[in-house]
């Protein structure tokens, strides 16, 4: 039930409220600069740090990466896994800065977690087999970030994707509507939903609204008209008052999805990448010295702890048997 879900309660944002999402993202950006940019004076701070807008571009770019990665994934991934990973990825960067956690790392972690949550069963070995480059490092990154990601999602892991509502609408159209062969709509719907994942609509509108927009869009592409179905059959008597709002929502969704430009600007990309490399938080960068040192320290700590415990255990064993084992 979407209406009782954590998704509805905590992860839906208002569009009218002077763009709640942008505000939150700005705040994350400001917070990061405040925490890590004390020695940089205000005038030059955007020379060093990414602006909120630049961060947004980075996130968008990695959303494209996410989509491509999921499409190429072996074994082929069901689309609700992709939808869920998009949700996680977007949610993460609402309250976190790109400079703090690199989207490349969060992206794979999101997909890995989505596979688990949506019961698409792949082991970590199978998973990293899809990643080019150092697989061992990737494994470490994913597993290290997994808990952080869940924490940042407030452990709200169940996601309502628009795919099931689409099925429901198609069943309803077949049963009550007058459209000829509704299966024709499918390719249009799928295309629309895929593009919708690249926008913020999934954070602004309920999955059923997105699904309805997808169906209506696909129908209009085929020069069919489903308006009477929506107004007379779907909404009927009890939904009369809400119709206007829904029409507005559908229009907004369609225009937002239409605006998606999926071709990134290569030059800008390179500049941003360089800038990010400079202003990344070294605490969370697996390539930085600080990070390596800290991990080593943690490992040593673990080792020390392990040694201490095992020493204690062995001494207890010996004393319990009331004899000491002569070491050879």
């Amino acid at each position, binding site marked *: 039930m979407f209406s009782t879900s954590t998704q509805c309660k905590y992860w839906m944002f208002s569009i009218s409220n002077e763009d709640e999402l942008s505000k939150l993202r700005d705040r994350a950006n400001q917070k990061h600069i405040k925490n890590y940019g004390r020695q940089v004076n205000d005038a030059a701070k955007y020379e060093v740090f990414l602006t909120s807008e630049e961060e947004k571009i980075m996130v968008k770019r990695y959303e494209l990466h996410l989509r491509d990665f999921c499409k190429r994934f072996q074994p082929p991934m069901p689309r609700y896994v992709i939808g869920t990973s998009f949700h996680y990825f977007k949610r993460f960067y609402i309250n976190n800065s790109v400079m703090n956690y690199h989207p490349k790392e969060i992206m794979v972690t999101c997909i890995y977690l989505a596979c688990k949550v949506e019961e698409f069963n792949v082991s970590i070995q199978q998973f990293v087999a899809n990643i080019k480059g150092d697989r061992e490092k990737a494994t470490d990154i994913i597993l290290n970030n997994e808990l952080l990601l869940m924490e940042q999602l407030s452990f709200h892991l169940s996601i309502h994707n628009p795919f099931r509502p689409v*099925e429901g609408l198609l069943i309803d159209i077949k049963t009550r509507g007058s459209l000829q062969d509704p299966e024709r709509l499918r390719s249009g719907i799928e295309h629309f939903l895929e593009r919708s994942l690249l926008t913020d609509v999934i954070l602004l509108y309920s999955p059923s609204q997105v699904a309805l927009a997808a169906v209506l869009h696909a129908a209009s592409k085929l020069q069919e008209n489903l308006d009477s179905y929506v107004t007379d059959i779907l909404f009927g008597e009890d939904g009369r008052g809400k119709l206007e709002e829904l029409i507005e929502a559908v229009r907004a969704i369609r225009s937002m999805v239409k605006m998606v430009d999926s071709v990134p600007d290569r030059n800008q990309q390179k500049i941003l990448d360089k800038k990010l490399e400079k202003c990344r938080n070294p605490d969370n960068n697996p390539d930085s010295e600080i990070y390596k040192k800290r991990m080593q320290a943690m490992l040593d700590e673990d080792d020390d702890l392990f040694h201490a415990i095992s020493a204690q255990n062995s001494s207890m064993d010996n004393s319990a048997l009331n004899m000491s084992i002569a070491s050879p």
Partner: protein
Amino acid sequence: MDDFTCPRCRTSKFQNPSLKMMVNVCGHGLCESCVDLLFLKGSGSCPECKIPLRRNNFRVQLFEDATVEKEVDIRKRVLRDFNKKYEDFNSLREYNDYLEEVESIIYNLSNDIDVVNTNKKIEQYKKDNREQILKSKGKIGRDEYELEEVLELEKQMEEARKKEIHLEVLEAKKKKIREKEALIDELMFSNADAKNILDTFTQLAQQAKEEEVKKPPPKVTQFSTGIQFGRQPQSTFIPVPTDEGPLYSYKALDFPPDGPKPPTLRDILEKGFISHVRSETEQERAGGFKSNIACSRALQDAMMGLFYSKKSVV
């Protein structure tokens, strides 16, 4: 015992101390070698009463009187069917009547009185009480159970006593040796009169003998691990914990649909929604996943949240 002779070969216990008398259902005895000889083929007839007998029914005669053997045999056979227990009766009186009847049947059979009628009676009883007989077969009556327990206990006590005696004997032997050595030491090294020494030692030995009073072994009711054996006087049940507090009352969950009302499960079947979804496979049905449920879920998901807007929630 001396006039114990095989009726066929006239061998007596006197001539052959290892003579073993065997007896069969008819109650006529035969010695072991005669049985071997006569029943070489596995079956034959009794040399006295010509009743056909089977070899494997022969067993060693326990009682001197062969008729007692016969009676025991018959009793065993009859009791196999008449196996009601005291618990099966409502009153002691009925039980006693039943026992009386069983006794009279056994008496009749063992003394060849009215054999035909008595056998008929047994057959009739068997027919009437077949179920009861089968049921009681596995059951051990309380008397038997107690008897078994007593036997077990006796066995254990016997063992304990044997052990104790054995230990005592050993101890006594050791003591004697020790005393002897002490006496010899005294005689060797002491300056006192040899006669005096002997006297004191004999006195000591006397005293020790008197002190030896047999202590009965304590009754054992549990293993060394503390587990009780034997039957406890009353088997206890752990009381079932009862929940205190007000009873749970079910309240139907209230889902705000936040959209048009989705069709009910019944509507799905009746209004034709079901014809547009894949019907469930056999395995899915076995798991309780019917296609109308999946269909209902999709429709619910499609309709719920259609009225959603952030303003209404804030």
